């Protein structure tokens, strides 16, 4: 289940529309998006601020549902799923990385990384071993017990990557992961993404910076809720 079968694409979005309703006002953030991502692909989604990138990521990450259209994740239609099943899908299929890191400040690095496994019901010892392994994978094997406040921005984002990786998801969704980082840390994180891609991970990277998008083999350009260009 980790990387999907060869026949099934990881992401298959057909005619995806998302309308936000704010009181009497309604705003269509996605206006009919078709997107297909195969296992092992490294895709960058680029577009100006407000173009609908985050909305797209939330839909793909099962954090939000489409107003119209179909979304199949590793071949399964997620439109049919209820809250509990969606939680399970997020837990097992998707690894999120956010611009603001979103680490819990009261927990140590290793405890943060353990969280997805805790919700999967994996026992303490195994959980910790996997979390340590993931932190070593991102080069933070010596920072296990540090709290987020004791880590640099780049290190915090690497902890977030470890947390995204630890559950062995079908894909990694990273929304502007370098948005809050200086150039050195940005290079670190992009290097990590390259390594993960080389290791066969499916990655969807959202950014508004062209030089960041250039690292990916495929660049999807979004504008006003529509896919403008899909260049391989």
């Amino acid at each position: 289940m980790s990387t999907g079968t060869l026949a099934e694409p990881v992401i298959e979005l057909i005619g995806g529309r998302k309308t936000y309703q704010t009181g009497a006002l309604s705003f269509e953030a996605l206006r009919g998006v078709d997107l297909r991502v195969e296992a092992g692909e490294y895709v960058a989604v680029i577009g100006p601020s407000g173009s609908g990138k985050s909305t797209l990521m939330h839909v793909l990450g099962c954090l939000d549902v489409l107003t119209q259209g179909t979304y199949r994740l590793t071949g399964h239609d997620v439109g049919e799923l209820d809250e509990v099943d969606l939680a399970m899908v997020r837990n097992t299929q998707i690894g999120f990385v956010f611009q603001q890191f979103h680490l819990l400040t009261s927990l140590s690095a290793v405890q943060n990384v353990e969280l997805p496994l805790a919700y999967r019901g994996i026992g303490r010892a195994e959980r910790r071993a996997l979390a340590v392994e993931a932190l070593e994978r991102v080069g933070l094997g010596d920072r296990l017990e540090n709290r987020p406040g004791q880590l640099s921005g780049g290190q915090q984002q690497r902890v977030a990557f470890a947390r995204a990786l630890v559950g062995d998801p079908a894909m990694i969704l990273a929304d502007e992961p370098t948005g809050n980082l200086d150039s050195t840390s940005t290079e670190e994180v992009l290097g990590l993404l390259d390594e993960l891609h080389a290791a066969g991970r499916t990655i969807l990277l959202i950014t508004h910076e062209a030089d960041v998008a250039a690292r990916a083999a495929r660049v999807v350009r979004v504008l006003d809720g529509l896919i403008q260009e899909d260049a391989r």
Partner: protein
Amino acid sequence: MTWAETFLTGWQAIRTHVTRSLLTVLGILIGIAAVILTVGLGLGTQQDVSAQISSLGSNLLIVTPGSTTSSAGMRGGFGSATTLTVADSQAMASPVVAPDVDAVAAQRTSSQSLTAGDANWTTTLVGTTESWADVRSRTVLQGRFLTDEDETSQATNIVLGTETATELFGTTFAVGRTVTISGTEYTVVGVLASAGSSTEDNLDDTAIIPLSTMLNSIVGGTGRTAVSTVYVKATSTDTISAAQQQVTALLLNLHGITNADDADFTVSSQDALVDTATGVYQTLTVLLTGIAALSLLVGGIGVMNIMLVSVTERTREIGLRKALGAPPGAIRRQFLMEASILGLVGGIVGAALGIVAATVLPGLIGSSIVVSPVAVVGSIAVALAIGLVFGVYPAVRAARLAPIDALRSQ
């Protein structure tokens, strides 16, 4: 997540806001302490009253003039105080008429001023007979108690309680000294051993003279045959109710009353007295406990309030946990657990406070407080339940948050 992990997560969340958490549980804490104190005070007072009543003697029946039944409004003119006589008490002592009665002691009391030299002391003067010491389970410390000889000769002999003796003579070595009451001199023949004063009724502040002397020299006039109380001692614990029936039947007969409802006297057992006395305290305890329960309710609302604040503050955390795959149930459990821990902490700290107060207070207010384990365990359980119940609404709200709105907040 296992329950143990949910507990640890909740505990950690509470520890990050120690002051706030303590303030939150203050209402519950005070409520629980108050419940333990009021229940303890109720029990303690009941215990005190029972002890006081049993200190009257053992296997005791107490016959008093007048009736407690409402239908007995008759004989108003005579006054209830004259309906019990020396002759009545003598008849009760008959082993033929009342075989289950072991001993009888009639007494007539009056508040009198006693003088010895310069010392002056007002006490309860008791006129009674030799059997009183046996019936009331009292012994003498010095000298002797009154005798039948004192009674028949209307002797001017007196027996003092330890406190009365000390007040008059500065010592309990008072045998042979003289006490003056209403101009008559009495010779001290004995001093009672201390019965240990219970809080309200000081059993050591008393003076006892022969009943005949009391009735003729102190009371006098038309009231000279009436006694105020007759103590009847049954032969054993098992025969108390038989003795009570015999005494009642005898008195009805002597007073010429056919309907027991019209009785002009009351025969009560110690048990009945204890029940009457404790009934009052039970009502009081229920009332006070009700007030304490209100405090618990207020405490519960405090917990709900702070949990709602906590849900709002941690919207992002909730969103993140959901993004990582926490199902709504896990979020609900986490907040329910936190609210329960708050309730439990309030309960335990409140119980501890109540127990400390129950240990310190009796010395200050002079009545016993009995901490009952049932009340302690029960109130901690109630505190836990309050946290749980008032945590439901915040927990449901947390679980319902859409992950996306939660992540976007701030």
